[in-house]
């Protein structure tokens, strides 16, 4: 399932014309362009299509044993999702690094476009997989992953809204149309067996992206501007940490008056009844200030929830990093999450209950992605399991699905979540599929780890 970090809008705190409030995500580890399994997987899918690739062939080309493969991944789908997510995280790192080095949005986007053109030319197999093979895969999850990748690009383009002379005149779907056109162009070229010619068309892409925001005349200037200096990104060696702690979102969603207002209003009224005027009114900002930051209510709520999810992931990873190995890390995370739930009960209720009842499909997907982030943290246990091949492919998802259902039911029934009391019970559930019943029972008696007290 799609990563929450993948769909996160780094631009939720954007200010007109600046590039400063888009944190740079950490690079994936292992680097998907070095990791032999990811390299083998991408090249095989590009050659044969997703359906025709088998785990044995991936392991053989990667030069790893089947046991080594299964220690990391439950099956082909899990390996593919992890690889594509790592590639996207790397892509986000590249885009945000280049973007942050520029003075304003327009220069940032121009430099990013050239860096992306380099990336496309350097990794043609990955482009083929993303544009063609994921689209043709029978697997719905992989198609969603492709769509989410494109939507990240759309959100980067849409940062222009804050800098547009007339933000309210920019169509709501301007960025989605621009990215859709670019994706269609790449897909058609690949389907016809033509060269991507990314550098030859990059100026046209920049023009297409900027036109809805800056108007025809200004956008046309892009067709003759030279490549910005320093827009080729040298890649340093991957960071040494296995599960790096992501940066905290800026601004802090518990301080930003807009995100605070969004959660309070959805809790009181439900998503459907919340209006832009009410959000702006409670946040103490004008409708013009609102329009500078968000296209509409949906974008505002999505960005707000994404900021909270990013903060939540920072909390989980900070606690996780305090442990030696998966069990200790998971235990610390579970208690840190219990603190989080006790401190922010409204947020939990909004994400688990109110988003479930929203008409908006993207919000429901966001809820699901938040849960799937938990599933991936749990599934890190696969790497340390005594016999990874005996661990069911969906062990992490099932454990997280059980926990999500349990919390949702308690909230819907108006019962106390009793987060600290339930934490060891949920740890039992999470540990059991990977280490067996005896080890899982130990979790019921383990004291709370010191590293679970996350200081903000």
């Amino acid at each position, binding site marked *: 399932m799609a990563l929450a970090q993948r769909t996160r809008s780094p631009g939720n705190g954007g200010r007109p014309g600046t590039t400063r409030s888009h944190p740079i995500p950490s690079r994936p580890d292992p680097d998907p362009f070095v990791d032999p399994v990811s390299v083998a997987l991408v090249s095989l899918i590009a050659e044969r299509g997703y359906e025709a690739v088998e785990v044995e062939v991936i392991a053989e080309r990667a030069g790893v044993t089947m046991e080594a493969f299964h220690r990391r991944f439950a099956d082909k789908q899990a390996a593919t999702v992890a690889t594509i997510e790592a590639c996207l995280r790397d892509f986000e790192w590249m885009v945000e690094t280049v973007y942050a080095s520029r003075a304003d949005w327009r220069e940032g986007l121009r430099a990013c476009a050239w860096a992306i053109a380099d990336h496309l030319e350097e990794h043609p197999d990955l482009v083929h997989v993303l544009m063609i093979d994921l689209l043709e895969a029978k697997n719905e999850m992989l198609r969603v992953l492709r769509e989410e990748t494109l939507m990240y690009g759309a959100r980067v383009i849409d940062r222009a809204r804050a800098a547009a002379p007339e933000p309210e005149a920019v169509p709501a779907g301007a960025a989605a149309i621009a990215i859709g056109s670019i994706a269609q162009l790449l897909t058609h070229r690949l389907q016809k067996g033509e060269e991507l010619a990314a550098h030859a068309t990059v100026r046209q892409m920049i023009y297409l992206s900027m036109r809805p925001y800056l108007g025809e005349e200004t956008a046309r200037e892009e067709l003759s501007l030279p490549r910005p200096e320093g827009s080729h990104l040298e890649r340093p060696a991957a960071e040494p940490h296995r599960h790096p702690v992501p940066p905290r979102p800026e601004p802090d969603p518990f301080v930003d008056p807009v995100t605070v207002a969004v959660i309070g209003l959805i809790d009181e009224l439900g998503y459907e009844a919340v209006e832009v005027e009410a959000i702006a009114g409670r946040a103490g900002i004008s409708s013009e200030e609102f329009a500078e930051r968000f296209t509409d209510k949906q974008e505002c709520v999505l960005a707000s929830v994404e900021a909270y999810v990013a903060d939540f992931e920072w909390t989980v990873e900070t606690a996780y990093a305090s442990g030696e190995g998966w069990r200790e890390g998971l235990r610390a995370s579970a208690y840190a999450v219990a603190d989080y739930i006790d401190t922010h009960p409204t947020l939990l209720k909004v994400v688990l209950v109110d988003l*479930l009842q929203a008409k908006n499909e993207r919000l429901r997907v966001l809820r699901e992605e938040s849960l799937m982030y938990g599933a991936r943290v749990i599934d890190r246990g696969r790497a340390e399991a005594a016999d990874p091949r005996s661990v069911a492919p969906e062990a992490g998802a099932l454990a997280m*699905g059980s926990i999500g*259902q349990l919390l949702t039911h308690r909230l819907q029934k108006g019962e106390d979540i009793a987060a600290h009391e339930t934490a060891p019970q*949920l740890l039992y559930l999470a540990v059991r599929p990977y280490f067996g*019943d005896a080890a899982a029972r130990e979790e019921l008696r383990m004291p709370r780890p010191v590293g679970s007290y996350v200081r903000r």
Partner: protein
Amino acid sequence: VARLPQALQNVPVGRSRVSREELGERQFERIVTAATEVFAKRGFQASTVENIIDAAGIGVGSFYAHFDGKEDCLDAITQRIAAEARESVVAGVGTEEGWAPRLCAGLHELLIFAGDNPLAARVVLLEAQTGGPKAVALHAALVDEVAGYLRSGREASDLGRGWPPAFEEATAGGLVWLAQERLLRGEMGDIDGLFAELAEVALEPYLGVDAARREIKAALSRAGA
């Protein structure tokens, strides 16, 4: 004189021989059938009363003669589907004895019911949880019922001693989550495969892997017979 078949005999016109109650019942059925399809295909939150009356081919007044709104309609549908599913389960369990065989027989029957009524399954498993307070409460009550039955398995096994109190609540939630996932992916076709998957999640903690698989195999062979 040869008698005409009953269907062709003269019947009084004007005052219908179909009673008002019977007409009402038929209309109710049309609405319920149409609404089940609308909720399952559009999702409860995205469905409107207009969608339902269009699908049922009735007027707005007729809809509101039976229901206060779409939430009320969803409540009625989920209650009815739950009652029908329960009947199937009871019939399927029959005279089976023992915690595990009864669980297997009931689960298998429930999945057959869901396979035969995919729209109904979607409404109860997915849409009820997104509906109004009554539908949500019914959904929660069904999960609690499953958790309650699972909990009685502790008496049938030594393995369950000392388990955390929330274990069955979470396991029942996990079973519902798995079924929801399969519904969303359109993978409800292989009833026996899905049964084996769900039954293993339910039985294995109480019986251990080998005994759970034996029970599942035996249940499938009984169901096949």
